[in-house]
């Protein structure tokens, strides 16, 4: 009996792992949800997929060391940091992210309205100001988008741990990391975060918060709120040893959308279908990654699209897009006027943004074709196939190794067992067994150790020998994407110049300009802010957008009606209080800067609630049917300019 238990235990916890993963992602359970493009935001994209595609030479050393230091799923021995194999794994992460991101792009592109999904490949760079960071290669992120998905695969830096538990992307194993975000106003309490791979959640939140602060400071100074964020994975690597934040998290299984919580996607090592891996070069159109992860993740992204109000999510991105070519209109945009003169100009401007989106959609399509269908994709599949064959061989070896180790231990145990057993039959059997095991165990133990050493050697040797193939892929990708960046940028700049000339020749006066400096205040903060909108006697009066920031970092943003410099009428207010990690969002009626009437309240970790306020005091629950919300469409305020 004891031997049976012992053998089982040994086989389960054998010396060498067999590099296994889940055969299906958690998201395979996600239900399908139809998504329609919101006609109020017809020029916007629904999803932009960002992924690492290149590394600049200046950033390589820091990127590799950060990759080793911030390993997910275990500690990397210091001795491994400087090894070429660690650098190879870091490089393979970029090349494979480019490849696997295409599956997500194709699935989303095919399941969402035409021309609403774009690709944004990033280059990883370093400079003294921003340290390790990434920036988009194409102009894709200038297009307002409801959601942004940051995608990359992950692989543990220490190649010797390949057969054990740490996350890996090698052969048939893929460990995807991703975050799904909307804008800070699209999901106010969590700075726009909807889903984040668990290890990235804190870094992603910190980065989103920093970007918001940067944009608010710019608006407060009267500048357009531009600003770029790195890929969340790069932000995570750049942070090094920052503490994890106590964010309100929920698991992927929970019903999405009810509460303002961040869905924490656990690190999943997905094992793709071996049948499809055997001859990937021939069977790649039945993409195993799509079957085992992307299809489910796509359904979840579609659910996320239904979780947010599209007009609200892209309101400030639309304003920023207008500010790039028509500052006057960008200011008037905050009024959300329905005056025909403004609407006519908005129609032209939005047509321009839509044309740019179409241009960039075409670029995304060529990036997809080149990366997945072209030479790069074909060679990546050869590499993945070779990796799969190697893994399968190592799995076989590991099974042998486990078996020999297990039996060696069993034989040892049998020897001891034999000394305690007295029956003739058993003694004879044990004697023969002992004789064999004494010889066999020593041999088997030796083989076991050999096999283990062999495994490690193979891992290193494989990665080292595969390096030229990877280097070729990297250099091809770099050359190819750089050519794309140059050609596209040149083509895009030329296109933008032409369209801008056309736009400027066709626009008419709106009969007003809201660019005069105007004050905005709030009882929340003892500071004077800036108002973009209708103004009287130097203070906010009418529709517009106001921003106040205190030196402490606390801030108030407000979109809606104002009087005498204070929020007054229907509006939405985003309050970031000093010391509070997350924001509070109030939407409804305000009087003299304070909530007054029925308001919808959103706080992190809670479901949205409707509350009755009197002069800023919460006096109890309110009926949502009495609530009048803010319309975030371009002409939401529905009023005519004077």
């Amino acid at each position, binding site marked *: 009996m004891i*031997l049976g238990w012992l053998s089982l235990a040994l086989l389960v916890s054998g010396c060498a792992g067999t590099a296994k993963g889940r055969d299906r992602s958690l998201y395979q359970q996600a239900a399908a949800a139809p998504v329609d493009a919101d006609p109020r935001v017809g020029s916007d994209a629904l999803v932009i997929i960002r992924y690492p595609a290149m590394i600049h030479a200046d950033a390589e050393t820091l990127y590799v060391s950060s990759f080793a230091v911030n390993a997910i799923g275990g500690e990397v021995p210091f001795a491994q940091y400087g090894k070429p194999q660690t650098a190879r794994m870091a490089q393979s992460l970029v090349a494979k992210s480019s490849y696997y991101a295409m599956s997500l792009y194709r699935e989303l592109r095919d399941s969402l309205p035409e021309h609403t999904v774009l690709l944004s490949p990033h280059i990883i760079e370093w400079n003294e100001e921003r340290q390790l960071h990434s920036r988009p290669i194409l102009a894709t992120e200038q297009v307002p988008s409801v959601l942004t998905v940051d995608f990359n695969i992950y692989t543990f830096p220490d190649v010797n741990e390949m057969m054990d538990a740490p996350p890996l992307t090698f052969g048939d194993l893929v460990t995807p990391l991703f975050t799904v975000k909307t804008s800070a106003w699209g999901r106010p309490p969590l700075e726009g975060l909807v889903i984040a791979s668990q290890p990235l959640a804190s870094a992603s939140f910190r980065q989103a918060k920093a970007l918001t602060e940067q944009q608010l400071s710019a608006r407060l100074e009267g500048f357009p709120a531009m600003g770029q964020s790195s890929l969340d994975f790069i932000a995570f690597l750049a942070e090094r040893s920052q503490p994890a934040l106590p964010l309100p998290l929920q698991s992927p299984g929970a019903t999405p959308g009810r509460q303002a919580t961040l869905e924490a996607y656990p690190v999943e090592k997905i094992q793709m279908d071996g049948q499809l891996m055997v001859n990937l070069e021939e069977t790649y159109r039945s993409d195993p990654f799509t079957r085992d992860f992307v299809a489910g993740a796509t359904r979840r992204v579609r659910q996320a699209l239904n979780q947010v109000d599209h007009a609200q999510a892209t309101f400030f991105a639309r304003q920023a897009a207008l500010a790039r070519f028509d500052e006057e209109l960008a200011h008037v945009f905050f009024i959300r006027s329905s005056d025909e003169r403004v609407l*006519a100009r908005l129609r032209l401007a939005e*047509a321009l943004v839509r044309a740019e989106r179409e*241009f960039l959609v075409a*670029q995304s399509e060529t990036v997809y074709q*080149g990366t997945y269908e072209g030479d790069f994709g074909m060679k990546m599949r050869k590499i993945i196939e070779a990796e799969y064959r*190697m893994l399968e061989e190592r799995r076989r070896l590991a099974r042998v190794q486990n078996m020999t180790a297990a*039996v060696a231990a*069993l034989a040892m145990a049998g020897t001891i067992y034999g000394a305690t057993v007295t029956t003739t039959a058993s003694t004879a059997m044990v004697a023969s067994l002992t004789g064999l095991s004494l010889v066999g165990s020593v041999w088997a133990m030796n083989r076991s150790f050999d096999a283990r050493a062999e495994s490690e050697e193979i891992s290193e040797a494989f990665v080292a*020998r595969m390096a030229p193939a990877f280097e070729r892929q990297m250099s091809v990708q770099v050359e190819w994407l750089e050519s794309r960046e140059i050609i596209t940028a040149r083509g895009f700049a030329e296109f933008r110049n032409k369209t801008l000339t056309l736009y400027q020749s066709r626009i008419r006066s709106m009969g007003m300009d809201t660019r005069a400096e105007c004050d905005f205040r709030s009882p929340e903060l003892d500071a004077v802010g800036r108002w973009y909108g209708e103004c009287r006697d130097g203070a906010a009066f009418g529709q517009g957008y106001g921003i106040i920031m205190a030196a402490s970092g606390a801030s108030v943003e407000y979109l809606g009606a104002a009087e005498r410099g204070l929020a007054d009428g229907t509006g939405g207010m985003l309050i970031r209080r000093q010391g509070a990690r997350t924001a509070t969002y109030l939407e409804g009626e305000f009087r003299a800067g304070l909530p007054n009437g029925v308001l919808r309240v959103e706080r992190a970790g809670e479901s949205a609630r409707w509350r009755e306020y009197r002069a800023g005091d919460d006096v109890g629950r309110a009926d949502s049917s009495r609530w009048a919300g803010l319309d975030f469409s371009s002409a939401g305020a529905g009023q005519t300019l004077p």
Partner: protein
Amino acid sequence: MRVLVWLAGCMLAAGVAADILSVNDTLTPREQYRRLSLVLLIGEGVNETLYHSLHSAYSPPQPQDEPVNPDELRSPLLRIVDQDSMLTGTSHLFRIAVEHGPEVARRLRALDEGYPEDIQRVSLAALQEDAILVRMAIADSIGWSGLDADEDVSQALAVYRARTLELRNLLEYEQFNQELGRMTAEAIASVGSKLDAYQRMFDDEVQDDTFDRHIRSAERPYQGRGALNEDAARVAEEVMNGVVLSESQPVP
């Protein structure tokens, strides 16, 4: 401009507007379609207040026996010097648009279905341009008449002018959009062809052998050792069999 002349003709020859529905047989389907479309476009945004006010002040006389050929009335001065005729015709045209709008729409659909090739040649942009000019002339004439002294009429006239502005803006938007679409298609084709050329460089990559050799080289260390491991497996299996056999013997 020819529409202005046509409208002026309609207005001079009172009753022509009414004949739009009755004498169309003399016109080609395309011309019928153009005129009926104009009636709808000109009547767009007319409310009851404006219609009744105009109708009570400028009741059209009885229709003439002979319909007027608009091409015979080409003088653009007509709308300047003969506002009364214009307002009388307008009154009649508004009546058709307000009271017979559905019938006009039905006739348009019938023409569209009956003469699709002819109707496709009608320029929508030209129609819109004509309608905008006529609407502006009508609005100016109502202003000249003094009917807008009444506040309700004044508001109704403001709505009518605003709708004219919208039509003009939509027309300009469509023209802008067409031009923009052409530029976008050109830019996509131009940049796309350059990228395609670049893509072909990689697709036609001739170093496949080198690449494949790298992969074979990477695979070599773990290939060709199967026999040794099979030996280990065989011995291990024998040992295991022994253990299993011993365990299967009952202890007396």
